[in-house]
């Protein structure tokens, strides 16, 4: 594995939040004081934790969530073009997980259920008006759409596993994830 430290400057780390519950990002914050160790070793790029709006090129990106709508699809392709190491971060990114449970039904039925049948006030359905991104007909894990360099399983992955994988990447060694690699 080649160390990420390129030409003396600190590697840049980004995180992205697609179709997930943000639990993986909460687990990221659970690294607690180790976040300070990490912050000393990387530059922080785009991340929902800093309310990012644009995604500039980085070395490592943790991507939480599955690809569920057209915006996610655009985002994951952009992220892949602009990151050296892409990590599928948590079960939704790795398998589709809970986000993909709707794959058992047709999109129209899912929308009908959410916006008509179970809604007290029916204001309409999210359509192709560009305000709410259109749902894809099937929720997909990241590796079905882009090349994924590491799969970090777990719902969510533990703070220990996140820290171990990131520091191993920074050190240029293989991560020791024994006992941490498991779906669920």
């Amino acid at each position, binding site marked *: 594995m080649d160390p990420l430290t390129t030409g003396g400057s600190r590697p840049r780390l980004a995180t992205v939040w697609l179709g997930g519950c943000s639990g993986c990002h909460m687990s990221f914050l659970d690294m607690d004081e180790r976040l300070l160790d990490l912050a000393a070793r990387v530059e922080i790029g785009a991340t929902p934790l800093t309310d990012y709006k644009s995604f500039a090129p980085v070395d490592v990106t943790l991507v939480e969530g599955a690809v569920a709508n057209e915006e996610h699809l655009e985002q994951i392709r952009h992220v892949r073009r602009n990151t050296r190491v892409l990590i*599928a971060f948590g*079960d939704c990114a*790795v*398998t*589709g*997980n*809970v986000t*993909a*449970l709707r*794959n*058992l039904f047709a999109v129209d039925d899912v929308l009908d259920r959410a916006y008509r049948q179970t809604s007290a006030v029916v204001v309409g359905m999210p359509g192709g008006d560009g305000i709410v991104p259109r749902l894809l007909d099937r929720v997909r*894990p990241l*590796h*079905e759409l882009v090349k*994924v360099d590491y*799969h970090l*399983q777990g*719902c969510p992955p533990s703070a220990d596993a996140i820290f171990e994988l990131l520091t191993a990447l920074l050190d240029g060694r293989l991560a020791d994830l024994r006992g941490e*690699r*498991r*779906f*669920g």
Partner: protein
Amino acid sequence: MSVNTLSIDGKMVTGTTGETVFDVAWNNGVRIPRLCHVGGVSDVGACRLCLVEVEGQSRLVASCRTAVQEGMVVRTDTPRLQAHRRLIVELLFAERNHVCAVCVQNGNCELQDLAASLGVDHVRLRYRYPKLPVDTSHERFGIDHNRCVLCTRCIRVCDEVEGAHTWDLRGRGTHALLIADFGDPWGQSESCTSCGKCVQVCPTGALFTKGKSVAEMQKDRRFLKYIVTAREKHEWIR
């Protein structure tokens, strides 16, 4: 009963005629992966995880259905076998709906553990998302077909140990489905004695006790050994 000497992963071991390669390997500390085998009932070779290489044979054989022979040279953990096992587990995940995060068996599941021990960190095949029923008509137990891996442990324990033969398989391939009696809701089964043996041997979250929520289901497989030892040796020991 004659004794056979054979080599398993380079280790010289002995087994009596009629014993399987699988049992002899386990007795000697070689833990061949398995999903459909459970000690105390017959073996069917359904899951194919216990496949091994036998020198002189080009075909891989299911070690749970292969009797030991004098001079046999067996390998249980080659890169080729590891690759096959990983693919088998990926096929199982892709075939039905396994969402560990919200499953009763999360954290205590043989399929989940198997994936972890074989290094399956993602599934390369496209998930099928079949629509499958959950039958909670039984007073105390439920069956979630989304989690069933068709290992038939439940069928065998119900037939061979309980003597009820409530369970059986209907259909073939991806259409195969576990059924109670003639396809009745489990709760209406006339043969089921509600003994719960099938629930305890099920390796996944497919058979569960009602009232258990996410990650709450634990299974006790030692009861089977207890019953079988009692029956065969008349020793009532735990």
